[in-house]
């Protein structure tokens, strides 16, 4: 795998790979999201307890799940960059950060919108919501550190270290917040636990999880392309590429 992957460490090859992958992410992402969402909204059966408000699950759970996985993916990219000195790995890491932050934001907002009818308050210091909030802070940290550096090479490395520190911390944060939550839980709070979710409810959820994952991959590739161009602006291959594009557009 190493032999096969290595040429893609070169930004130019990575850019080409992005271009080939893009349609493969875009189409299935749209299909999964559209089908999953319509199915979830209109065809999945009602929850006998929560009524139709449970339908928020079809975006809350995928975004919450994938916001965590995106952070882990960032840390893996950072590790790859560190171990094998791939510039593109750092670029991929920083391309992921805003997407992950958006996912976290969606998870937080949908959590709040779900919480209001269920708990009667927009914000409840529930374990999962609190972890999501801290995760959002971690994303902010990585992005802020990256933008603080003038030299983006250095920025990538620094943000990578912070992503790794964060990823070591995520399980600890998760555990600690859960501990804290059970400790301070005065009133009975019905958690988001999905009590034996019916299969008819599950299929659209799986579809949407898939769709969200593909969407994240899609936006990451788009942003990675941008990052590569920004960093390689003065290289001949970028200039060739742009020239080619111009002539194509002219015709």
């Amino acid at each position, binding site marked *: 795998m190493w032999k096969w992957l290595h040429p893609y460490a070169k930004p130019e090859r990575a850019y080409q790979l992005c271009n080939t992958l893009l349609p493969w992410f875009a189409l299935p992402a749209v299909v999964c999201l559209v089908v999953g*969402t319509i199915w979830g*909204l*209109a*065809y*999945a*059966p*009602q929850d006998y307890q929560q*009524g*139709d*408000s449970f*339908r*928020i699950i079809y*975006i*809350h759970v995928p*975004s919450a799940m994938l916001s965590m996985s995106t952070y882990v993916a960032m840390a893996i990219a950072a590790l790859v960059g560190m171990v094998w000195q791939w510039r593109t790995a750092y670029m991929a890491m920083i391309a992921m950060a*805003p*997407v992950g932050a*958006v996912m976290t*934001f*969606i998870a937080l*907002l*949908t959590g709040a*919108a*779900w919480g*209001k*009818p269920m708990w009667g308050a927009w914000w409840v210091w529930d374990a999962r919501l609190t972890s999501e909030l801290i995760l959002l802070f971690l994303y902010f940290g990585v992005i802020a550190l990256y933008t603080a550096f003038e030299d983006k090479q250095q920025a990538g490395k620094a943000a990578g270290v912070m992503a790794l520190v964060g990823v070591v911390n995520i399980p600890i944060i998760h555990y600690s917040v859960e501990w804290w939550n059970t400790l301070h839980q005065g009133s009975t709070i019905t958690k988001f636990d999905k009590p034996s979710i019916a299969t008819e409810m599950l299929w659209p959820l799986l579809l949407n999880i898939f769709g969200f994952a593909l*969407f994240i991959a*899609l*936006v990451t590739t*788009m*942003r990675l*392309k*941008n990052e590569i*161009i*920004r960093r390689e*602006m*003065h290289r001949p291959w*970028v*200039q060739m590429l*742009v*020239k080619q*594009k*111009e002539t194509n557009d002219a015709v």
Partner: protein
Amino acid sequence: MMQFESWADFWAMGGYAFYVWLSFGVALGAMALITIFSVIEHKRLIKQVVTEQQRKLRIQRAQQQALNDTTEPDRSN
């Protein structure tokens, strides 16, 4: 099999319309925004490369000009 009797029912979401549509709306909006921003950024970067190329061309031309200017008096003599 659709779970709702009518369109009106569907939009009402069993009384939870505001929360459900808020969630889906914001999610859609956020996802659309980040996609659009990425596309706009791509266009901006391509434009930047083009201006960079033109600047380089100008510099080259100016240098050529300067070279011509210094050699011309020699020819007139």
